[in-house]
């Protein structure tokens, strides 16, 4: 049968009593009350148990990659915010980083520190939303509101820093847009003093709650081989036991000077790589981000925050592929320049795109309620998938 462009093979079976059973085809449609965005899954289910869950993407496709070819090197930065609006700093950073590599621009030290501070704050920002909405999807509404409350403080910090709460447009090619305001560092450390004990509070409130663990432990485990084969990145990959973090293994910016651990999933409540591991890795990463931020606060030097970059930038012809560790994992920016003022091609390879491609494989014979847990644990955001 056909369901909006899909040919879904419905299985009919006849049992001994002559009763004909047919699978039910459901559309977990583009509109649904979920924070993950405009995603659609076509589910072929036998009652509650899914035989197949096919993702249907493209509802949020805004042809950002084509727009890059039209607006030029500097003008593309606001568009990068929209590539992943939940963690916009990383996208800004990725584009700027790629352009700097192409054009051979050196970024001042203070700018790099500002970038790392913005990145790690954005990581906390994004993980709070991911963890909160995961709890909400499982049914616990209160941790979501607490996460949003903490995000409000972060939003205030960001607003003071760059004027925006969601789409920051903070970084520029060659540095960052504005220097840290006076007293902002104090407010940042004030926030960290408040936030670090609260991560423990979230753990007490929801992480090890028996019902929560039962819903997540052992659900849709992803082995390390599968994860690498499907190119899962970031917390999804680390939850499957692969110790790889772009910040540690191929460091960029000032990460070589910073000390932090990389949490990986150990199957503590179920199987390695199940939904619970993906959740708990994110919780622990938030603590590591706090550590990094504290080091940045003490180590940040004085100096200019942006290098001298010509307005009419024309990087020499060539291509470059840079990777940075975004909240959702290793985000790859493949940028091709042909020597003109406009990029020739910009390809953004995002973590959620690969993560959603593994959903049909790992969600076989799960229940529909588990599909929600899987989607939430993979931290899918539609803007990243569709661009």
């Amino acid at each position, binding site marked *: 049968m056909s369901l909006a462009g899909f040919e879904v093979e419905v299985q009919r079976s006849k049992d001994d009593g002559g009763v004909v059973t047919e699978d039910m085809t459901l559309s977990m449609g583009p509109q649904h*009350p979920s924070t993950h965005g405009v995603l659609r899954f076509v589910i072929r289910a036998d009652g509650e148990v899914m035989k197949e869950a096919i993702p249907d993407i493209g509802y949020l496709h805004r042809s950002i990659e084509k727009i890059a070819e039209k607006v030029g090197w500097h003008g593309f930065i606001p568009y990068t915010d929209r590539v992943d609006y939940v963690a916009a700093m990383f996208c800004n950073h990725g584009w700027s980083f790629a352009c700097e590599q192409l054009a051979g621009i050196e970024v001042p030290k203070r700018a790099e520190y500002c970038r790392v501070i913005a990145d790690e704050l954005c990581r906390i920002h994004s993980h709070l939303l991911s963890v909160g909405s995961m709890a909400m999807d499982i049914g*616990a509404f209160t941790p979501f509101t607490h996460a949003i409350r903490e995000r409000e403080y972060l939003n205030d910090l960001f607003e003071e820093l760059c004027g925006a709460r969601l789409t920051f447009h903070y970084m520029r090619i060659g540095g960052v847009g504005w220097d840290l305001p006076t007293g902002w560092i104090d407010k940042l450390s004030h926030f960290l003093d408040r936030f670090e004990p609260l991560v423990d509070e979230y753990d007490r409130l929801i992480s090890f709650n028996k019902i929560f663990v*039962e819903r997540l432990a052992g659900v849709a485990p992803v082995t390390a081989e599968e994860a690498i084969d499907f190119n899962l990145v970031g917390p999804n990959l680390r939850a499957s036991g692969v110790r790889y973090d772009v910040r540690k293994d191929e460091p960029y910016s000032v990460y070589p000077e910073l000390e932090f651990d990389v949490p990986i999933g150990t199957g503590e409540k179920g199987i390695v790589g199940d939904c619970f591991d993906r959740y708990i890795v994110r919780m622990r990463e938030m603590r590591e981000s706090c550590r990094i931020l504290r080091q940045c606060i003490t180590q940040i030097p004085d100096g200019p925050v942006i290098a001298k970059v010509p307005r009419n930038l024309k990087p020499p012809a060539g291509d470059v592929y840079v990777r940075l560790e975004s909240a959702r994992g290793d985000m790859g920016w493949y940028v091709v320049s042909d020597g003109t003022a406009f990029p020739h091609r910009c390809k953004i390879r995002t973590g959620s795109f690969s993560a959603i491609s593994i959903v049909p494989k790992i969600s076989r014979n799960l229940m*529909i309620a588990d599909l929600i847990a899987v989607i939430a644990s993979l931290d899918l955001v539609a803007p990243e998938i569709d661009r």
Partner: protein
Amino acid sequence: MADLVQSLFAEATWVHYLVVALLFGAIVVFGLVLPIAGITTWVERRIMGRMQSRIGPNRVGPAGFLQWLADGIKNMLKEDIVPTAADGPLFRFAPYVVMVGFVGTFAVLPFTSALIIADLNVGILYVTAVTALVVVGILMAGWASNNKWSLLGGIRSAAQIVSYEIPAGLSIFPIVMLTGSLSMQEIIKLQGWAPWSWNLFANPFAFVAFFIFFVSALAEGNRTPFDLPEAESELVAGFATEYSGMRNLLFFMAEWGNLYVIGAIVTTLFLGGWQIPFTFESKVVQHLLEFATFFLKAYGVGVLVPIWLRWTLPRIRVDQMMSMCWKYLVPIAFVNLIGTAAWMIWSPVWLQVVTRMVLVVSAAAATMMFAHRVVYHLEYAKLTRAHLLFNPLATTRSPG
């Protein structure tokens, strides 16, 4: 009520009885049931708000108290959408079936020693039977909506409610055995005002039966952690997805009002009902105090505790819920039943007294420990957070 009719009318025919009964029912429904359901929404939203670090409704009336009235009026004025492909008569009829299943229970709920609409001698059986009507309504709603997701929600809900009827019923039996009667007022009369005379502490099996009944009643009322039929993130509103306006409100009023019914039943069966220690000459004062006792107990256990649970706990999955019911609650409820019977036959009087004391003392100790922990955490929070109140507009690092 029969005497009331006879005292009013010289010749009382069945018409007089019917009219007085309907009038009485209308007073109770409009004066008590609907306001309870409505005010519970306000209570829930305020408590929910505070638990979630925010204020609940606070604009309509003092502390938002008239919010429920505003919601009711808004819903009545909303457009009544019936999907074209939906089964019209069934779709329109389903909310009323659910409401009947809910409001019908009020006929036997006691409020004071004299205030009860009908003290049926099968009181508690009647309650169990009438609340089962809700299943029919939910299935009708799920099917008639012509929406696969509503159907899923309806079927999940039907499976849940029907399954959890078993442990609930089985947990009522020990009390009925202890009392020897199904009548609500009888059950209360055979308890006393003091905690050690409640059915809750009569024997260890009744103690466990209380918790099993409470959990089963939560499941029957579709409350978190058992609210999978209306799981928002999956099914929008489950069986009630296609409903708008007043019909939608009727479903949810039934759910909130049901909390009070759960509380009233639990208070009747386990917590001593309206019994108060003293008798007063003035009937008014006596009944007022009895009503206050009953209402506070019923509201505390039946409404406040489920609200607390709902906003703390996540949702259980369908198969986990079913296995919990059939593999754990039903066997334990059976053991309770047989255990109570054995206890009644074989335990000597001194053992009964001692057990009551032990249970009361341990319950009191547990409550004290819990209160102590709550106070400790509040003090701890004040200590560690006082200097961390974050004011982004502050220019100096100032406390609070």
